[in-house]
């Protein structure tokens, strides 16, 4: 249950990003924050959303939507020589040939993909 510290880190990163925007875009409001979360990232989207409103309150992210894009595990199968998407996380075998696969190519991501912002009023 470390979702609260993850959300705190997301809010900090986005706030820093906003502060680094050119002067003309200062005061931008965040509409949406999009995350990429691997199926093996040990993160529960509902818990992130639960913390979102609380942590973002009083920041430029207040009122924004959190969109969690869940990524399935992708392994590389040596026998087939190809990548394959796993349906779940209960068996790390190639869905085509059934061989065990330890070479993981996707599934542990835990990152902020992008943010959608609405530009603030440009000061004259």
């Amino acid at each position, binding site marked *: *249950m*470390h979702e609260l*510290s*993850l959300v705190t*880190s*997301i809010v900090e*990163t*986005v706030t820093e*990003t906003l502060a680094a925007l050119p002067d003309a875009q200062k005061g931008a409001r965040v*509409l949406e924050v999009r*995350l990429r979360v691997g199926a*093996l*990232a*040990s*993160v529960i989207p509902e818990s992130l959303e639960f913390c979102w409103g609380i942590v973002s309150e009083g920041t430029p992210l207040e009122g924004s939507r959190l969109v969690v894009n869940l990524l399935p595990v992708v392994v590389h199968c040596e026998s087939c020589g190809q990548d394959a998407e796993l349906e779940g*996380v*209960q*068996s*790390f*075998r190639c869905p085509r040939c059934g061989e*065990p*696969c*330890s070479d*993981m190519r996707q599934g*542990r991501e*835990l*990152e*902020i*993909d*992008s*943010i*959608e*912002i*609405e*530009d603030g*009023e440009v000061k004259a």
Partner: protein
Amino acid sequence: MTTRIVELRRGILKKNDELAAGLRASYTTAGVLVLNLVSSPGTGKTAFLERTLKELKARGARVAALVGDLETDNDARRLAASGAPVRQINTHGICHLDAEMIRKHLDGWPEVTLSGLDYLFIENVGNLVCPSSYDLGEKIRVALLSVTEGEDKPLKYPTLFNSADAAVITKMDISEACCFDRELALRNINEIRPGIRIFETSAKTGAGMEEWLAYLVEARGGAETLSL
């Protein structure tokens, strides 16, 4: 008013990952093998580590341990009986260790310098979920599972077992009394992490410890420093 998309592509745990990368580089420079031990509370991490420290010390290796718990220094006191330097990390409610806690406790640890060590063990907070997200710069992450826990633990907590480099089954001395299905447990671990090294051990009887110690020596790449 216009809306725009700003690409960030930033790891949420970037700060921890960067700190861990720095730690990893300093471990490598110092030539110390660092292991991160993770399991549920009660698996027997401390007993396993007590035995490991004792055996390594008896063979002339320079060892130390950092041990994480929410509260108390009970584990540090138990481990210190081995004669190895041990430092307790109290997280006060946080469910995992992070790279910053490791850095802080390595700094200002008078009896320990990394270059004066062969092995550093980090016993994580007992938790099968959160520690898997936090890189501590370790070379080897060890997932432990006791015979009392149920053979399907790896299936229930795939993230932790999948991110491990080695698996240790503890309390093998009571496996019969627990009706532990060894074949099933091994199969489940392999289903989640195909090809992982698995050690079947008992800290009480010492079963499986020789194989484990040999693995440590090999992983450190310094077979000549220890006579096993």
